């Protein structure tokens, strides 16, 4: 397995990318030397320490690690919601300043606005982009159809179950036709059954739309099921330990993938990596 301990001194392209076979395209997302420290009252927390990462176009890549390993921080820095102390983010070669309009974020807390209807929530990003009402509604309806929620378009979001609410969150993100979809532990608050159903839905949406997805999770199985590559991170300081390829054929099903040899190997490898780093707080 190729190694990729993020470090600015190492040759960027060779260490950070793993598709040794298909390096014809430039990465859609290029993260270089990103560091972020949270200054606290008693001590400073190094959430990210010189992280390098390349994301290929159209791939599904997961960031996996224990809580506090900086994966959410990294995702927010990528989107521009938080600023990094050092380092750069490049989207399709262009350096990013501030919040990117070509990427969309799906929140762990879902964060639907209760004073808007479901469709009103999905239209949010389009409103900000100045899309006209009729067109907005059309796109929003389309996106809601994609996640199977066309029937509840006009209800207030708090009447929906958690799983349905997060689907709306996904629809909201897809409505702005992002180049990269950033998902921050989107199913963390849901029960197992809903989570598995939504995992399958995200996988199928991904294959349908050909979109690039960066997915943060602490659930190792989830990352194996969904991803092309898994970025294993650890905390204190937050950094990438290793990046692993997932060589499971697609489409994958919940029932089958668990029994696969590759899955079992990956899972033990990742767990071993995470455990070997334990001891730091």
């Amino acid at each position, binding site marked *: 397995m190729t190694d990729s301990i993020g470090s600015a001194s190492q040759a960027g392209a060779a260490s950070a990318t793993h598709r040794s076979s298909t390096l014809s395209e430039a990465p859609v997302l290029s993260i270089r030397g990103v560091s972020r420290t949270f200054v606290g009252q008693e001590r400073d927390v190094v959430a990210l320490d010189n992280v390098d990462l390349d994301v290929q176009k159209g791939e599904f890549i997961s960031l996996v690690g224990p809580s506090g390993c900086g994966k959410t921080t990294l995702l927010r820095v990528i*989107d521009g*919601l938080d600023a990094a102390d050092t380092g750069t983010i490049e989207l399709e070669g262009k350096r990013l300043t501030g*919040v990117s*309009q070509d990427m*969309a*974020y799906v*929140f762990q*807390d*879902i*964060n639907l*606005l*209760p*004073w808007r209807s479901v469709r009103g929530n999905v239209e*949010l*990003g389009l*409103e*900000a*982009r100045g899309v006209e009402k009729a067109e907005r509604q059309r796109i929003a309806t389309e996106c809601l159809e994609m996640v199977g929620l066309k029937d509840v378009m006009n209800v*207030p979001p*708090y*009447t929906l179950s958690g799983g349905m609410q997060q689907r709306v969150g996904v629809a*909201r993100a897809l409505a*702005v036709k992002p180049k990269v979809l950033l998902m921050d532990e989107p199913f963390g608050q849901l029960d197992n059954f809903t989570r598995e159903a939504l995992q399958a839905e995200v996988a199928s949406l991904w294959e349908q739309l050909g979109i690039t997805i960066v997915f943060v999770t602490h659930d190792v199985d989830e990352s194996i099921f969904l991803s092309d590559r898994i970025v294993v991170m650890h905390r204190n300081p937050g950094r990438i330990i290793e990046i692993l390829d997932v060589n499971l054929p697609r489409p994958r099903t919940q029932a089958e993938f668990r029994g696969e040899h590759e899955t079992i190997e990956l899972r033990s490898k990742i767990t071993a990596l995470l455990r070997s780093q334990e001891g730091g707080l």
Partner: protein
Amino acid sequence: MTTLSSAPQTPSVGSLGSSTGNGQAGSGGGAASGRAKLKSVSETKSWHSRATRYIAILAVLGAWQATGAFLAPVFLSTPTRSIVAFYDLMVNGTLPKAVGSSLLILAMGIVCSGFFGITLGTIMGRIQFLERALDPLVTFGNATPSIALLPLMEVWFGQGKLSAVIFIFIIGFWQMVVNTLAGMRVVRIGYRDVGVAFGMSKWEQTFRIYLPATQPFIFAGSRIALAQCTVGMILAGQELGQGGLGGIVNTYGTYFQTDNLIATIGTTCALALAMFTALRVLQDTKFRWIRATSAGRRGANSK
């Protein structure tokens, strides 16, 4: 079941006109027979509590009537005499005129205070520098007891309607500023993130995220402002020569017309109650999400 109707509303800032809805109880789920059982229990209980309420009211009225019959009419009057007085005052136009006059100054004062108060609260909530600069002024203004301002009103604006409206405005204004600002400060970080993440401009964020998120606080502030401004309305009538309900209360007091006095006070009460109910109805119809997502309810994302 009765405890549900007196549960504190969000935010719990001393609200009159609290919920009267008993039917909000989520008694769902379970077998049909189980549900029927639950319903009859809650029905019985609410029948009980309503009966208790009415009996209590009747008991008080009865005691009043009995006591009043023994004392000179000047002191207590009686329910019956007060009702007769009420009828007379309505018929000869005194009460309707007074109510109209008072409500007019109240409406003008409170609408202006709402508009300017919410505006200033919003501006302070969004521009940190202004918040810091104006905070001492707001604290000072809010802490000043309104009664102390009455002589000042007279000096500056004389007697009459203008003075009264300004007086009511000042009372309501500080409440609205303070409450709006409080709401602005605690807008959920998740909501703010949504605004930023989806590319809204600062302006758009203010009107489409911050202001709607502050609505519960604006309602709470409105309830307090309404209560205080109603007092101001009476005071203005009494002290600023404005007439209206305050004015006739003074007159009846001076001439020991206790039955007229009680009739007027009762009318003022009923008026205040009606206004609070109207506010509550507005919140529960046009802003249902406030109640639906208040802390502790199912469906609320409490983080």
